């Protein structure tokens, strides 16, 4: 008897969830609402079935997520009786930080990076699961499954712990924490295959429908609420679009698409010629930017 590639990945991820639950005092599941989070949640639920998730789920809200995302978050929390905690950086609210007024770099830093650090400090989480995959981006390709952060939440890529076999050293000092990536060895195709195989529910933004968008710097940005201000010459168009990756709506580009169901989405993905993170404005500044953000505490 031999198990398939996907079942092997599934088992590996489940083992990682269980190891953290067995060894860490106060783990948390970082939930981003996207497809990778959905797969990761499915794996976590399986790891502890029939028990409920033995740890809380945290969403760091920037207040600029698509409305469909927030609805989906509430739906999932209820469906699986999750201990869902939502954190919004109060400093950001006070200073009215937003991606349009302050630009993507400041907005992401304050609402996402600083917001996450606040939540981790507040709840004293010692381990946080994230859905990053090694095939996504060059510096992630080098990150361990168990990735250590100092008490200041920074990552030292030059000094990662050796990580042999599937033995994970989870020992840390007080104040330090671990970011754990159960999907490290999954590829984008694996994720989609698994969604299909297991019939995993996804937020509707992944599927094409008519949505109000404007073209800005060659990208299609959805006008999700009244905070989005049109620049001169910009016009809202009702186009059939979907999203390959999800984030804050003014920072996430849509693509024209007819893919209304899962099969069509997978078909589109198979012929895609543009890599996934291209849809996120955050990565394009410079090629070492993700590593830099991570050293500063970005997930």
């Amino acid at each position, binding site marked *: 008897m031999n198990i398939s590639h996907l079942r092997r990945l599934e088992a590996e991820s489940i083992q990682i969830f269980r190891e953290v639950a067995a060894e860490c005092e106060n783990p948390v599941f970082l939930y981003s609402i996207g497809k990778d989070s959905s797969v990761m949640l499915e794996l976590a639920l399986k790891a502890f079935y029939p028990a*409920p998730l033995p740890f809380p789920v945290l969403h760091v809200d920037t207040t600029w997520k698509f409305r469909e995302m927030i609805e989906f978050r509430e739906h999932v929390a209820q469906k699986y009786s999750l201990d869902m905690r939502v954190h919004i950086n109060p400093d950001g609210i006070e200073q009215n930080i937003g991606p349009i007024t302050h630009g993507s770099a400041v907005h992401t830093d304050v609402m996402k990076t600083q917001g996450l650090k606040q939540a981790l400090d507040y709840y004293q989480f010692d381990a946080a699961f994230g859905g990053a995959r090694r095939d996504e981006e060059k510096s992630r390709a080098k990150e361990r499954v168990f990735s250590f952060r100092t008490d200041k939440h920074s990552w030292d890529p030059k000094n990662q712990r*050796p990580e042999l076999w599937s033995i994970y050293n989870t020992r840390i000092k007080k104040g330090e924490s671990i970011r754990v990536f159960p999907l490290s060895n999954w590829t984008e195709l694996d994720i989609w295959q698994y969604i299909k195989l297991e019939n995993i529910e996804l937020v509707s933004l992944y599927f094409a429908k008519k949505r109000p968008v404007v073209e800005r710097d060659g990208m299609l940005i959805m006008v999700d609420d009244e905070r989005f201000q049109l620049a001169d010459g910009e016009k809202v168009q009702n186009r059939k679009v979907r999203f390959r990756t999800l984030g804050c709506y003014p920072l996430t580009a849509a693509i024209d698409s007819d893919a209304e169901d899962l099969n069509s989405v997978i078909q589109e993905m198979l012929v895609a010629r543009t890599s996934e993170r291209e849809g996120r404005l955050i990565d394009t500044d410079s090629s070492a930017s993700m590593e830099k953000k991570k050293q500063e505490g970005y997930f």
Partner: protein
Amino acid sequence: MAATDQYEKKQQSSAELDSYVEAQENKSLLRFITCGSVDDGKSTLIGRLLYDSKLLYEDQVESLKAESKRIGTQGDEIDFALLVDGLAAEREQGITIDVAYRFFSTEHRKYIVADTPGHVQYTRNMATGASTADAAVILVDARHGLQTQTYRHSFIVSLLGIKHVIIAINKMDLVNYDESVFNEIRADYETFSDKLAFKEITYLPISALKGDNITESSTNMAWHKGAALLPLLDKIDCAEEDLSLGFRMPVQLVNRPNLDFRGFCGTISSGEVSVGDEVVVLPNISASKISNIICGRNNVSTACAGEAITLELEDEVDCSRGNMITAKNARCEISDQFQVNVIWMSESPLLPGRSYFIKTGTQTLAGVFTALKHKVNVNTLENEPASSLELNEVGIVNLGLDKPIAYEVYDKSRDLGSFVIIDRITNETIGAGMINFSLRRAGNIHWHTPDIDAAARALIKQQRPAALWFTGLSGSGKSTVANLLEKKLHARGKHTYTLDGDNVRHGLTKDLGFTDADRVENIRRVGEVSKLMIDAGLLVLSAFISPFRSERQLARELLNADQFIEIYVKASVETCEKRDPKGLYAKARRGEIKHFTGIDSGYEEPANAELILDTDKYSAEQCAEQIIVYLEQQGFLNADD
């Protein structure tokens, strides 16, 4: 890695998609590493593999071209290394410091490749990559031949149990694709690799930069008849090497959400398990049956190696994280003393006698390296004496743990024979270890000769032979317990023989008296007879007062250390005198017997008996049962593998 060439067609029916997804699903997975000395072109090779198998997206190729011009080392040509060297420090220095994982697939397989660093100071990162790989591509620069790092990496690859290696002699374009250069390096490597444990070595001349012998055979090297790299990788047979182990699952977590459910979670490391199977929890040896198997959210009837499952057992057994659930009739061994290989990964050296944390798959124990046998010179693979192990050195060490664990040797199971070493103060992972054998049992003696020897005789009896040496005062219960034990063993179909102290004096040692010299000769003869019977495959029960340590030591030394089980049947003189089954104490009290042990001759209590049975407290039945448990635990009641 999404784009797949054969699926350019925009329109596909759903059925086609389903069959495509299914085909993807059924692909096998091969994990391999690339390693070798710095500048042998590892990153370039992987970049080339991704590029040639058309697995890059358009935007990735565009940004690669732009970066090649800006910071590349290949003029206007594409610098493939930039594709994989992901950390800023690496890109600036042009070196690879950490292992990078890359993903690609061919028509036949999915691949996860670990691109590992060449610099000697990053050997630990290289070992990280190698620990999960099925195969290794070891690069050699054709201009420089074998380097220290080639030797070191080959040795570590072999040590970590990778059986399939491809020696890719790279940069052939820089030596005019000269066959003699290839042959020379190949001959050098053949000499060196004699001492390594590879199952299959393939030699391949390539140029990663120019794309020779990567996806298809190069016309520049028509003299080389073998397949190119990708076809070679597609053909490596990585099917499970050893399926002979029975069912084993280390318990990772006990899932107990409420009083009605108690599940044991873990990943099956070998074999299969089905509902109704009889299992044993080690090391505490509690037996039960599988009542349910949960895989995902489903109850299933059977599960196999590699699956992460939850087991429910019929009985309320003692079972917690770190225990191992195994097939009842093929359980694994238990020990707390091992000889191990260690790869040291810390600036502060390994010191024998210092206490470290030892983490296996599912538990952390305290461990001490009791002796550093030697370290290995990576260039010559010779053993050298050592008093400490420095960063990146490999040594052979004895390890003592604070409690016994169920284990397999690394050769048989990467999961159950491996551990990492953790510094108690810094929490850093400072070394990796692999179990060679236990120092406490016979598994370390390899009997592979096809002749009919002791092991062969024992095998058909489904047992491991040993001398069970009962010592204790007259009347302590030696013969009674031995007799009960023999009955129990016999009932289990085990082959036994009892040498009773009184009985042998009627024949074998009839000519001997009770002088010191005669006592020694008495024991020597009994020891020699035991030895013959052990060779015949029997479990030999010897019940002798044997009051002196030196006598018992003599018997012990006649036999192999792990074939001698000293059982101290303990009872106070008062108890024995009260029992006095043969009326000997009464006679001794009356002075009718001289030099009677316990009355006018001393008894030296054993200092290191394998078992102590207190017959003041326990019945003979309970004592015999304790011995059975011990024999099971030590594997005497199973055939040796």
